[in-house]
């Protein structure tokens, strides 16, 4: 029998006489900082980079194929597409929901931006705003379905994912919008080269949203809603508003990823960013998020996308490893989460 026996179930919610509080001695702040999930995720990233640096060390000396400024920038640039969207997706996960739409929102954003810029001859700024509008609408629709219609987030955002991707195909009718024709790769708005914009935006937004989730009341409320929605309502937290906020933020951040993608790669296409949502969710999870809500970190999620970014960059450089990369990515998720749980259990 795989079923749990009611009498044998976990001793959850033992309101009565559980063991008295564990007497944890006042650990120093430094030690507790070291034990945060953000830092252990960073450690995994550093270890991963060190491993590939060693493994791919060029025999005859000369230029290292993995550790060089150009490749580092490449990793950052591609990871940023995931990373920016992961900021929003991790907030949704912390609130106890899940967002399956980011990949499709990224695609529709590239298409709408391309369409408005090339076909409708809008200015670049107006086209970018139209692209971001896609995020507002998609996030708003998810929020409405979750908050007003009370659909489970998985179903609601699965629907929004289909609608968004579908619209992208309808708008393009099999074509793609070649934005690069009008935006040269050398284009540098405000003097910042195009290649640097993505990493800079990612880092700035990560810091901003990290501070938001830590120190702003609405950010803390996201943790409360994800931890215990009923108690949040009884505590006077406006649960509907908080949920709306995280879904709209997730939509807008995904759209921003789309904007950066279309500017950087020069194409607005309906089949871009396919399956990104699952990589993004996996990144949030290896960064410490719990899919049951109430736990997680924006910084952790972004570091998670970097861990995957390094894998995707380095594996193809190992002869014969190309066909293994999905397998390895899957294994990495499982191993990290299992180790995390084992450590948590030992602490308890």
């Amino acid at each position, binding site marked *: *029998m795989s*079923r749990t*026996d*009611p*009498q*044998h*179930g976990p*001793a959850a*919610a*033992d*309101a*009565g*006489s*559980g*063991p*008295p*509080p*564990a*007497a*944890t001695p*006042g650990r120093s702040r430094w030690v507790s900082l070291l034990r945060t999930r953000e830092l252990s995720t960073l450690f995994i990233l550093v270890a991963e980079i060190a491993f590939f640096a060693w493994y791919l060390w060029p025999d005859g000396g000369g230029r290292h194929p993995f550790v060089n400024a150009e490749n580092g920038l490449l990793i950052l640039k591609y990871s940023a597409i995931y990373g920016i969207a992961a900021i929003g997706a991790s907030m949704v996960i912390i609130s106890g929901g899940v967002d399956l739409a980011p990949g499709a929102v990224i695609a529709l954003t590239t298409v709408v931006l391309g369409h408005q810029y090339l076909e409708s001859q809008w200015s670049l700024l107006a086209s970018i705003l139209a692209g971001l509008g896609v995020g507002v609408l998609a996030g708003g629709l998810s929020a409405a379905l979750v908050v007003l219609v009370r659909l489970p987030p998985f179903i609601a955002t699965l629907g929004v994912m289909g609608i968004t991707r579908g619209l992208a195909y309808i708008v393009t009718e099999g074509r793609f919008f070649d934005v690069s024709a009008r935006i040269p790769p050398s284009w540098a708005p405000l003097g910042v080269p195009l290649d640097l914009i993505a990493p800079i935006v990612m880092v700035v937004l990560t810091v901003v949203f990290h501070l938001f989730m830590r*120190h*702003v*009341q*609405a950010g*803390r*409320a996201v*943790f*409360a809603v*994800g*931890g*215990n929605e*009923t*108690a*949040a*309502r*009884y*505590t*006077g*937290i*406006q649960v509907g508003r908080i949920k709306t906020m995280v879904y709209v933020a997730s939509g807008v951040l995904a759209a921003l990823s789309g904007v950066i993608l279309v500017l950087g790669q020069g194409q607005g296409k309906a089949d871009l960013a396919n399956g990104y949502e699952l990589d993004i969710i996996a990144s949030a999870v290896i960064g410490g998020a719990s899919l049951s*809500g*109430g*736990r997680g970190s924006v910084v952790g999620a972004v570091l998670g996308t970097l861990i995957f970014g390094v894998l995707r960059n380095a594996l193809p450089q190992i002869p014969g490893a190309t066909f293994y990369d999905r397998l390895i990515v899957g294994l990495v998720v499982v191993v990290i989460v299992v180790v995390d749980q084992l450590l948590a259990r030992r602490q308890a």
Partner: protein
Amino acid sequence: MSALAFEDVSKAFGGVKALRGVTLSVAPGDAHALMGENGAGKSTLMKIAAGIYRPDSGQLLRNGEAVDLASPRAALAAGIGLVHQETLLFPNLDVAENIFAGHEVRRGWFVDRRAMHERAASLLAHLRLDVDPSTTVSRLSAAQQQLLQVARALAFKCEVLILDEPTTSLTDTEVDRLFSVLEQLRSRGVTLIYVSHRLPEVFRLCRTVSVLRDGQHVGTWPLEGKSPQDIVRAMVGRDLATGHGHGKVGDTIRLDVRGLTRRPFFTDVHLQVRAGEIVGLFGLIGAGRTEVVETLFGLYRAEAGTVQLDGAPFAPQAPADAIRQGVVLQPEMRQSQGLFFNLPISENLLLAREAASKGWLRQLGRERGECEALLSRWGIKAASIDVPPDSLSGGNQQKVVLAKWLLTAPRILLLDEPTKGVDVGAKHDIHQLVREEAARGMGCLVVSSDLPELLALADRIVVLRQGRVQGELLRGATEEDVMHLATRADEPDAA
């Protein structure tokens, strides 16, 4: 020879010693009460007997022979069944499937549903539980679910039946039913171990009582000749003054409820709470008490009637609205409605005030001191304010929820079952805190099904029956007076 004996049993969780060398024996056929404050180790001891925990040292004897209860299954095989405080059932499965979950009646490889249903039906008849074995469990009442757990233990042919606070969610009639079943079981030779905070129940059902305190066995006595005070003293280790009154009820009416109606729960409810006054709201289950306070807190919209708060109209659209205007509710279920187990105690304390405040930036630095002061002033025993509240005892958890509200400096405090599942000492503390806050001019409206509690705490008791106010009783009323108002339902054309 004893049916079940513990010999020098110790158990620690991390660095905390939950049980320290408990030696205790239960005679066969006895109805044995196990009492103690929260954190005294009752549940730990019972979980050891049920094979959920293993002792660090010491041993268990069953009919005089040492047994090793390595798992709940082993305990059941040894004839020891545990009925949990919260019903641990599969709400999506039917009654028979629940009774036989994990040891289905089989014919070859297949589950023999017919045989299972027949055996379930005879067990249910035994317990005088009038439900069809194919009913889905989620459709049963709390009492029926509790009895279903007993049925489950009996299906395993348990000779020792442990009941951990089985009556917390039952009405008086349902308690009567459960007790008559338990009496019957005992007369058939089943040994009962009854864990409860409720002294009247213990005196009614049990013959022997054992008291635990701080993980140690204080003593075992026959209940005959013992008074409730004796037991409380053994549990707490000190005498508790039964406080009465707190004086000074102001004249100003803080909360004035007129004709409040939300069908089908309550109709035309009138009541007033003055500054410094503690008003009790009593009624049987289903009388609409919880619904009244939840509506006042803005969780639901009233369909008719007006509420005035300090003379101004008060019609909250949501709890956030009520809190901002100074009306707060301590909800009935502290775990599901009051606490965040993913957040540290400090945030549990501060979230409500933050949500109600206009500012949006948090100043946790300054607030840490405030939280620490609260914990020590209220005697909340916690390792630190940075740990989640799941390590706290029930009474301390309840204090955290109450403290959260008092930090918002409310004008009206609504309390729904403020001491449910809380031990005697914490109950006393909570009453004291409510009295102190009331003395500062706050108005309190207390819902409780614990009538002695209301009689001791409230200046005035408003009695509801079937959603209508039946009358008000002043301090000095007796339980009979209150119950008379609360149960007039059965008389034809009452009110």
